[in-house]
């Protein structure tokens, strides 16, 4: 069993006495790609800043290679680097922005070759971009330069906070490719926070779900937010759009969040779906089939109204039913399989 690179122990962080991160235990393996998923305010950015040792946690500790680490420690400087969501560059040329990390590390004076390599990695022509100033770049170019400034350090850990949130599609693809190549070329450990769950599920060895600062699960998960509408009897619903409703058990409050494990939902052909006591049926359409990396199982994304639910598909089921994109199916689940936060 490989030793953990990162180990988080009883980590708590407050902003104005409000807890924003509360994680008892979290482990990240070396040379892995870990995803952080969760809604806005779930603590992803704060967790990344703590893991980047930008700030000290209010309580608890973070260990690297088994040893506690703190901001400005020699063990983490230039080894752990964070790329933030909004591109930010210093008021100097592209070349000097990228070379800054090499300078503070005391690296050799010849920075031209590593800087040019880093620019090429992010898809920017060194001859055209080296002498441009920070304010002569588009948003996508600025974010790529910011990434190049981290890649030039060949960091041990690269933390990415929504790296493609504020850039165009072309830059987004280049940023993703360059980030992943750091792992393949240097064994860099990546931790990526993103709202693009499909990308996370595709590239990450593990996806960790955060909600209100806590880890609520790993792997694929269905998270459905309130508000909830009450119906006849004890029934409550979530309006999923296009006339579709998702029945749920009684929520603890109107803004509660429901979690349904993909393994708790059964995928049925439309014609074989039958109502049973305690079981709810919802119709949808298959939009995507993928392999869940962590478990090696097939996952189907099923569109219900304007929402998408992930369903783990049993191999025996796969043999028994036709399943492809655009195929109408029925989802079946028990109301007591819903977990509430």
């Amino acid at each position: 069993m490989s030793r953990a690179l990162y180990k988080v122990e009883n980590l708590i962080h407050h902003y104005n006495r409000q807890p924003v991160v509360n994680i008892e235990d979290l482990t990240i393996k070396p040379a892995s790609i870990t995803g952080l998923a969760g809604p806005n305010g779930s603590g992803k950015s704060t967790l990344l800043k703590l893991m980047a040792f930008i700030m000290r946690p209010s309580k608890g500790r973070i260990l690297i290679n088994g040893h506690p680490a703190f901001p400005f420690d020699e063990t983490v400087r230039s080894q752990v680097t964070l790329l933030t969501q909004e591109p930010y560059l210093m008021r100097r040329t592209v070349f000097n922005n990228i070379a800054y990390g090499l300078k503070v590390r005391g690296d050799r004076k010849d920075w031209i070759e590593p800087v040019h390599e880093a620019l090429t990695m992010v898809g920017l022509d060194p001859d055209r971009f080296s002498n441009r100033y920070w304010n002569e770049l588009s948003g996508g170019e600025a974010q790529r330069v910011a990434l190049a400034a981290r890649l030039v350090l060949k960091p041990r850990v690269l933390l990415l906070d929504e790296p493609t949130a504020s850039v165009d599609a072309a830059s987004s693809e280049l940023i993703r490719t360059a980030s992943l190549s750091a792992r393949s070329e240097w064994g860099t450990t990546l931790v990526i926070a993103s709202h693009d769950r499909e990308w996370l599920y595709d590239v990450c060895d593990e996806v960790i779900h955060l909600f209100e600062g806590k880890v609520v699960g790993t792997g694929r998960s269905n998270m459905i937010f309130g508000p909830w509408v009450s119906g006849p009897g004890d029934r409550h619903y979530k309006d999923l759009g296009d006339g579709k409703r998702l029945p749920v058990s009684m929520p603890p409050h109107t803004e509660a969040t429901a979690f349904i494990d993909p393994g708790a939902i059964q995928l049925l052909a439309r014609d074989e779906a039958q109502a049973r006591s305690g079981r709810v049926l919802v119709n949808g359409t298959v939009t995507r089939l993928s392999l869940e990396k962590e478990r090696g199982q097939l996952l189907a994304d099923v569109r219900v109204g304007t929402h998408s639910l992930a369903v783990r598909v049993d191999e025996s089921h796969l043999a028994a039913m036709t399943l492809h994109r655009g195929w109408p199916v029925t989802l079946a689940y028990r109301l007591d399989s819903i977990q509430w936060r």
Partner: protein
Amino acid sequence: MDFILAGFIQAIHLLFGGDAQTWSAVAATLKASSGSMAASLLIGVPAGFLLGYFDFPTKRQLRLLVDTALALPTVFIGLMVYAFITNRGPLGQFDLLFTLRGIAIGQTILALPVVIALSATAVESMDRHLRTLLISLGASRTQLLMSSLWEVRYGVLAAGLTAYGRVMTEVGISMMVGGNIKWHTRTITTAIALETGKGMFATGIALGVVLIVIAFSVNVCLSFLRRR
């Protein structure tokens, strides 16, 4: 109107003819102001950086004190410096009264709040992402502070130029502490006041032209820095 025009024409003669009294006043001004600016930048820039960068319990009160000091009248500063460096004052033994060094001390006190306040403002307006960026790229604590100061260099330079403009054009300190002694402590501003009082408009205008040229140059630099 004729005498004003005649004054301008004579001013050109005095300046380009190398009139000794005129250029003595210019030299005295440059000496005193350069000394005071060097001192106020040396003390004021680090103080302003610390005030703007760090959070500490009495920060707000200190900032209030600095901002209040911005409004100190020059005659009041001149009066206080005079009281300290006169023979009966605590610093009387240093013979600073009626010297350019004495004027420089007073002008340092005038310039210091300007440099501190505007440097602190420049640092406070620093993007909050800069700290994250610098630490992410491996900066040590010292490198973080130095790089942050470098990033706000244009704001700090603008603070220095603003203070310089204030120092160049003040009369109260130069008059009270310097004594307006010909060939020694007569500065541009005290000379203008004296010559105008004597009806010697040409000399006053000549010195005023020098002041305007310097003030214009300062503002051109400030304008350039604002765009950066």
